[in-house]
């Protein structure tokens, strides 16, 4: 699509584009997770990155920071999973607390005793 073509042109040097002139690919292959990957295996956060890039492309950094905040937050969360880890930690803490108070016993499939068939 057109966006990919644009990225072939404006990767690092938007006016000179030395790499296309020389026909070499020194670092274009590692600039984007959503670029061409070996064995065609998609990156883990490919979708989020694609959304963010499609939102933020061509409108300048100042505007992009305001308008694409949602996509950027989702992409950041996918990369670092900070909110996910916080949530899981909170659940675990509460579970430990309840177990200590005796109000909660973990079900059998959570204690590692039964066999793990689906």
């Amino acid at each position: 699509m057109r966006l990919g073509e644009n990225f072939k042109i404006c990767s690092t040097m938007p006016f000179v584009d030395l790499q296309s002139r020389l026909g070499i690919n020194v670092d274009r292959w590692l600039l984007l997770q959503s670029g061409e990957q070996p064995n065609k295996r998609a990156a883990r956060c490919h979708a989020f990155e694609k959304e963010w890039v499609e939102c933020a492309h061509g409108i300048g950094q100042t505007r992009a920071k305001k308008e694409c905040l949602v996509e950027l937050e989702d992409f950041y969360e996918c990369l670092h999973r900070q909110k996910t880890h916080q949530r899981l930690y909170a659940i675990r803490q509460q579970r430990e607390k309840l177990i200590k108070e005796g109000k909660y016993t973990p079900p059998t499939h959570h204690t590692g005793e039964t066999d793990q068939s689906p």
Partner: protein
Amino acid sequence: MAGSKVKQDMPPPGGYAAFDYKRNLPKRGLSGYSMFGIGIGIMVFGYWRLFSWNRERRRLQIEELEARIAMMPLLQAENDRRTLRMLRENLEEEAFIMKDVPGWKVGESVFHTDRWVTPMSEELFNLRPREEFLRKRFGFLWYV
């Protein structure tokens, strides 16, 4: 001195038998060229055996890959069922555990989108013993 009757150690009558005293280095064994030839011949035979067995191994490897491709829908479906089941169990446990915590929305997604996001192993194995999570994550390594 000759003529005195002293007992001396003399050679036996008739003299000693003849023996070789001249230099004798016979040419024996294979020549250098033929030794090289035998060595190179053994090497060529070894290479031929190696290459033909490697071709056979490549054919076997392709067959294994084909078997993996043939089984992949089944394995993927089983894996997906297992993931969904674990997510469901985690959701129910979370609903029970966090019901007294103020301001907690059960099953809330951390993303703003409602697209399906493949869950991480941490999410699936959150409430299980840590060994299971570590086995899921590192159990497939063949090396340390």
